[in-house]
Every structure is written in structure tokens, then in C-alpha cells.
């Protein structure tokens, strides 16, 4: 569904993405993990067309996204740090996005009720806590029933109750056969969610494996332990 070929991106002299090749299919739930500053968010923003890669191509459903915008109809994006106009209320933001999208598709307002945002509709965005802002971001990502969900650190900043609600929602959407892309540092949270894992380091894809393969090859049943084992083994390899 999404194909990424030979993407490179430099910010000044810093090479953030170096020759990335990835391919995501429907029904997959992919975790994008890696240390801070390894290029996860840049990769996501490149898929969304917010960052323009220096070279390489990204295709969604077989079409290049360069200069395109309609493909974003099928994508719900939850940013790591949601930034919204200060003087608008939650209700106004949601209304505005509905107007901008002008979508006739069924709206998925389940999360608004689950997060009890409808009671805070007239609160201004600047008065919201970080967690509540995250909830608004999550609502906007799921609102239009998109085929692809891109979630950048979805549970960071959410309280345990809210993050459980969000996790259950993600699992339900995954069962509907949607493509879900998650970045996260909380490996323990990913256990019952994901089907594949991508580990990035210094702008390169370190490995891209199915969860079963990963668990089988490391003989661990927890993702966090499996990753730790791989990283430990790598350390013994000589560096060239």
C-alpha cells in the first residue's frame, strides 16, 4: 500500500534519512522504533508530504505522492506534539477539520465520547494539558475512518486509562484491516498490538522483521527483551 524507495533527506549537513527502503501492506500494524533523533518522525512526515525528501520516491496505492494531496484523505495522522491554534476551542477545531475535509464518509466519533471530550468542547486549546491535547490529536486521526493510521508516540503523555482506551481502539481498527504505523519508545505497550517491527538507527533501517520471526530467532516472547538481545549481540560485532 505504501512503498518507500531510496529515500534520503538531509537537514543541512545532518543526514536524517539515508537510503530508506520500506513497504507497508494493508492489515499490518507496524512499530517504528529507534533511539531519539534516528529519523522516525522525519520518515512519517515524508509520507505525509510535510517534509520533502531530497531523493527517492514514496508511492501510496501505486501513485507517487510528489505534489499530490488527495491521498491524504486516506490517512489519519496523530502528531507527536499536537500544535493547534491557541484561541480556538476543541469544538471549533473539530468543526474546522470537518469543514476542511468536507467528507461524506461516516464519522468515527467513538473516541470523543470515550475520552469525554464532548464535555470540554468550549475549552480553548491553550488552556489544555498536554494529555488532553494528545486526546484531541487522537480524535482527529480516527475521525474520518482512514485506511491508514499514522500515530507518532500515541500514548506518550496520556494517563493509563486513556492510553488503554486508545490501545483498544487501535486493536479494533487493526482488525478492520487497516494499515497502522506506530512509533513508540514503550516497547512493553506494543506487545499485543503489532505484527511487524522496524528498527531505525542513525537514519537507516537496522532491521525490518515480522514479530513471530523476531521472537523465534531470539527465543524471547517479549518484544522488549528480543530487541535488547539483538542490540546486545550487535555490540559484539566488529565495527568497520
Amino acid at each position, binding site marked *: 500500500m505504501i512503498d518507500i524507495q531510496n529515500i534520503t533527506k538531509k537537514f543541512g549537513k545532518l543526514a536524517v534519512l539515508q537510503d530508506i527502503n520500506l513497504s507497508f501492506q494493508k492489515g499490518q500494524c507496524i512499530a517504528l522504533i529507534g533511539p531519539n533523533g534516528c529519523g522516525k518522525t522525519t520518515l512519517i512526515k515524508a509520507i505525509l508530504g510535510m517534509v520533502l525528501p531530497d531523493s527517492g520516491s514514496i508511492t501510496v496505492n501505486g501513485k507517487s505522492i510528489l505534489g499530490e494531496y488527495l491521498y491524504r*484523505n486516506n490517512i489519519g495522522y496523530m502528531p507527536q506534539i499536537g*500544535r493547534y*491554534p491557541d484561541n480556538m476551542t476543541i469544538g471549533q477545531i473539530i468543526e474546522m477539520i470537518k469543514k476542511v475535509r*468536507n467528507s461524506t464518509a461516516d464519522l468515527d466519533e467513538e473516541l470523543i465520547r470515550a475520552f469525554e471530550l464532548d464535555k470540554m468542547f468550549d475549552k480553548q486549546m491553550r488552556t489544555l494539558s498536554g494529555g488532553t491535547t494528545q486526546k484531541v490529536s487522537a480524535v482527529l486521526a480516527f475521525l474520518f475512518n482512514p485506511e491508514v493510521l499514522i500515530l507518532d508516540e500515541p500514548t506518550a503523555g496520556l494517563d493509563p486509562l486513556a492510553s488503554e482506551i486508545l490501545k483498544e481502539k487501535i486493536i479494533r481498527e487493526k482488525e478492520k484491516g487497516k494499515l497502522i504505523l506506530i512509533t513508540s519508545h514503550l516497547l512493553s505497550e506494543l506487545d499485543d498490538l503489532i505484527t511487524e517491527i522496524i528498527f531505525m538507527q542513525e537514519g537507516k533501517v537496522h532491521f525490518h522483521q515480522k514479530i513471530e520471526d523476531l521472537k523465534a530467532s531470539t527465543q524471547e516472547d517479549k518484544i522488549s527483551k528480543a530487541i535488547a538481545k539483538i542490540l546486545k549481540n550487535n555490540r559484539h560485532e566488529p565495527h568497520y
Partner: protein
Amino acid sequence: MNRIIKIILLDILKNKIVLAYTLILAALSWSSFALEDNSAKGLLTILNVILFTVPLVSILFSTIYLYNSSEFIELLLSQPIKRRKIWTSLFLGLSLSMVLAFGIGAGIPLLVNAPDSVGLMMIAIGCLISVIFVALAFLSSILTRDKAKGIGIAIMTWLFFALLFDGIVLFLLFQLADYPIENAMVGITALSPIDLARIQILMHLDVSAMMGYTGAIFKDFFGTSIGLIVSFLLLCLWVIVPFFISLKKFNQKDL
């Protein structure tokens, strides 16, 4: 496109600064007509107001508004909307609100007190100057990510066109007084939208006689209908060029 322009326009009109700007323009315009006994003198007073405050408010307000809507731009970019559309909508929204403020603040007193060709000309030029400086604001805010730097560039741009440019022209005029530079002067005025606007209106106020030989040359060029069309086209270029440069940069910007 209309939906986004509407959202932006409503957001700007809610802003109290625009309201205050309209009221100040109205107060200045009404009082300058009330103070002078003939409308030509009133027009000259308003001319100076237009050429000084309108550019300043247009460029500063637009630059600050653009920096403050970076979140809004980011939010829209993750939605299925063309980049070009977002930037153009912002430009149209800001231009429209600045023109509206000028139209209500200065346009109404002008129409009431000087309902002739000069009055209409003044309104047209005021609107154009507003849009030109909104376009320059777009250029200055796309040049740097740093808000303080961007506002600094905006203020310098205004300072250059409102004060420095005249100083430079005057300096050249005195230094090169022995040479026949009158025709070159006409060309140089095209380099500043404010001077272009000022000369255009002065030509219609019949005070160009006070400008000596250079004034006569100006009259020869700007006084004719071709000169009028050319100077309006030049003013339009001052809108189009900065805006398109900024649009091009915005299309390639990483957010």
C-alpha cells in the same frame, strides 16, 4: 478554497488589532478633512497617512499573523489540502481583511469628502499598497523560521521603503545634479511601491508644479494614460513577484 479563506477571514476579523486599525484610519481621515477648508489639502494630509501607516500595519500585522498561524498551517498540511491552496488562502484572507479595514476606515471618508477621480484613485492606491505590503510580509516570514528575525526583516522593509529610499533618492539627486538624470529618476521610482503611489497621486492633485523640472518630467510620464497604466502594472508586479517567490519557497519548505 472558499472554506479555508472563510475560516481565516473570520479569525482575522475577530482580532481586535484590525478593528483598532480601522478606527484609527477613520479618525485620521475624518479629522484631516475637518481640519482643512478645502478637500485638496485634506487629501494631501491623508496621502501622508496612507503612505506611512498603511504599509506599516499591513506588513507588521501580516508577518506576526503568519508566524502565529504556524500551528494552523501544520494542522492543515496533514489534511488533504494542497500546499499552494493553504498559502494562497492565507494571502487572500489577509489581503481581504487589510483592504476591508482600509476601505471602511479611509475609503468612506474619502468617498464622502472627495467623491472625484482623485478620491477614487486614492482608495485604489491605498488598497494596492495594503496588498503589496501583505505580499512583502509573506516574503519576509518565509525567509526565516525565527519569529524575531522575521518581524525584524518586516520592519526593515517598511523602514527602507518609507524613509530610507527617499533619502537615497534625494542623495543621488544632489550628487548628480549636474547630469541630466530626470528620465532615470522616473525609472528609479519604480523601485519603491510607496514612491510610485505617492507620485501617482501627486500628479492628480496638480501640485506637481511645485516639484520643478523633475516634476514636469514626471507629469510627462505619469500624467498620461499610458503612464497611469504602467504605474498600476508596476504596483501589481509588486504584489505578484514577492508573493510568488514566497509561494515557491513555501512549496519546498519542510514543516
